[in-house]
């Protein structure tokens, strides 16, 4: 296998794996505190679930970047195209923004969501604000994803 293709696959793999790990860490933290809440007030399950899924988006963003890479190198149902080492490096570097921002923003968004669970416990009518506060952290994953998409879009394979 050519180095270019290897680098592209590495980029796609990292873009999925690290944000997914971040999302899993965050979801598990929020899930644990949500479980404590719904043991007392099961009727709050819906809103707790909403707070839990929020930091899951980073995993999806990573997946999205990976799909774009796979499409670009023809690994997604098409014929594999020849990828030079230079282009491979470009693709790998293009994946870095969503890989790192996805991983870390998911973990930190999870922390805000955990605090949101206590808002939900004490003032359920203000749960919407807790959701927005948590989503504020996600902004930076969105920006990173945007940059990854724009760079990938500019790379000619």
């Amino acid at each position, binding site marked *: 296998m050519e180095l270019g293709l290897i680098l592209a696959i590495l980029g796609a793999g990292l873009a999925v794996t690290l944000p997914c790990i971040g999302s899993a860490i965050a979801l598990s933290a929020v899930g644990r505190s949500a479980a404590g809440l719904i043991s007392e007030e099961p009727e*709050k399950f819906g809103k707790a679930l909403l707070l839990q899924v929020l930091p899951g988006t980073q995993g999806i963003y990573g997946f999205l970047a990976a799909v774009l890479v796979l499409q670009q190198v023809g690994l*997604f*149902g098409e014929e594999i195209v020849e990828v030079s080492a230079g282009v491979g490096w470009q693709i790998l570097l293009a994946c870095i923004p969503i890989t790192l921002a996805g991983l870390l923003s998911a973990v930190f968004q999870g922390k805000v969501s955990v605090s949101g669970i206590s808002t939900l416990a004490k003032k359920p009518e203000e749960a*919407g*604000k807790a959701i*927005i506060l948590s989503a504020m952290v996600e*902004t930076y994953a969105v*920006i990173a994803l945007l940059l990854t998409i724009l760079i990938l879009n500019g790379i000619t394979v």
Partner: protein
Amino acid sequence: MNLSAKKYEIIGLKDKSQEIIEEMQLSGVAEIISLDEGEFTDGDLKNKSSVELKLAEMKFVNDFLSRFEEKQGFLSALIDSFFPTKDKYDLKQLRNLSSEKKTDELVESCNFLEKRLNRIDSRCELLEREIEELKKFSGISENPFIDFENFEVFIGSIISDKKEELLNALKEKSIFFFIRWGGEEEKKNGFYMIYPQEEERLVEIAKSVGAVQESITWSRPPAEIVREKREELSDLKKKREEIIERGRELTGEIPKVRALIDWYGWELEKCEALESGKKTELYFYLQAWILEGRAEKMEEKLKKITPYVSINELEMRKNESPPVLMENKDLMESFEVVTGVYGAPKSDEPDPTPFLAPFFAVAFGLALSDAGYGLLLIALCYFMGKKLEDARAFFNLFIIAGAFTVLAGLLTGTFFGTDLFAGLRIVDAVSDPIEVLYLVSVFGLIQIFVGLLVGLFWNYKQGDINTALGSKGGAVVFFLGIAAFAFTGRAPLLIGSVILMFLLNIIFSENENPLKRLLSGFGSLYDLIGYFSDVLSYSRLLALGLATGIIAMTINMIAFIFMDMIPVAGLNVAVAGFVLVFGHVANLLINALSSFIHSARLQFVEFFSKFMEGGGRRFRPLAKKGRFVEVIKK
């Protein structure tokens, strides 16, 4: 629009206080102000403790009977947690319900059942523990604790695998001993051993092999004890089942009990409202925020109860801010859902709902941007809105947002991730994201410009001419300069607008000091960075739109890969169909949530900051609004 409330005092005949407060509850236009020096005592509120008791009883019955209620399905429980269904009652029905003797009987029955259940449960727990301890000896049908002369008894247990080893070790010594195995438990086996008094070392041998001495004695054979305890346990479990069955029969009463929880909650609210007021021998005195223009009508109603009641407007204290009620009609009401997440504006700020409505809908559409998803969202919300009338405003919001999603989907030519409507495509987000980036940035510029205009108008209306023409006016000029530059390509127009903005900020600065005025001018230049980052924030709409579209495309691809991979005809179609349906519904739900949150954020952070601060207190009137019940007029 914002409905502002004014401060009033209400003076009325004390004997009629309950009826008066009840009428205020029914009107739903007055929020009681708690006076620190409330003078009502327990003696004045004779029924407060009985109401509290009744409320506690109803809550207990509800909690107790809920244990036997049939569990809801996952989906209906999920829907119910967001939009709880309410039973409809009129006041007469509720009043009759509260005076029903049957309710007292129900409380008594539940009390009795709960006590019995608790007793049975604790007895069962004890029996289970005792059986657990004795189980390993349950094969022993004689009592070894008989006083054998010159012999001792050792009660022990050993893991079953070591039974043979123990026997061999004891036999090796060729001394007389008697051992009886308890049986039943598989991993551990209980036993007793009778051995001559002088042969204590047998105990040591048993322990060295792994036997553990059990500090347990029986007055009767363990087999008999275990059997009796098991019989008792089984009888208790039958009785428990009977109680549960009785509990299940009573669950039919739950709707009434829940209605009474709301009813007694309102009764308690009446007592608390009075408690926060003052009194004389004959009259009570309350202060309340009443919605503007509603006090006269309410007074008319109260006068029908007694002529000795009056409502008078009061002067507001300095720095006192009245609560705020947002009231919008028809489709605009749906967008209150978005404003509601942020909270109410201050009483002297505009209601942002009508301003955000078109921008929110467009932002949501651009963030989801798939015509198929838009149609599916409309269909789902239409169906849910029909089913859950109370939440119709919420679902209407998504029907409108869905319609804009269809439009955005047609603009980008995506339909469930396919190119079905590629012919209608104006911009291609996947192959030319920069074009969409321009589009969303222009959208951002327009929304921020509108925000500034609203701010300018509002400051002007409030008499704050300096802010209106200085910072807001300057920014408006700058945005006009951008537009002029974009249409003509003439840079001097843009530079001129910046200079004009700078000058406006100096001229209309509130500071007298010329140096500080100059600083205001430079401050406005710094604001330009803020506007730039505000506009950049709209790029999230592109990223979210791409996320929806590309994941939708991936779902289609995966479905087709399954179709090709599975060789069994029919099965491949079924699997591919499942992937398509499940995948697209999940993608729609996740991305609709993201689209809602991020579109809302654009309103709260980028838009609202141009004309309001928020942080107003919501108007919470006395009202018969319940958690379980909706009061209807008959």
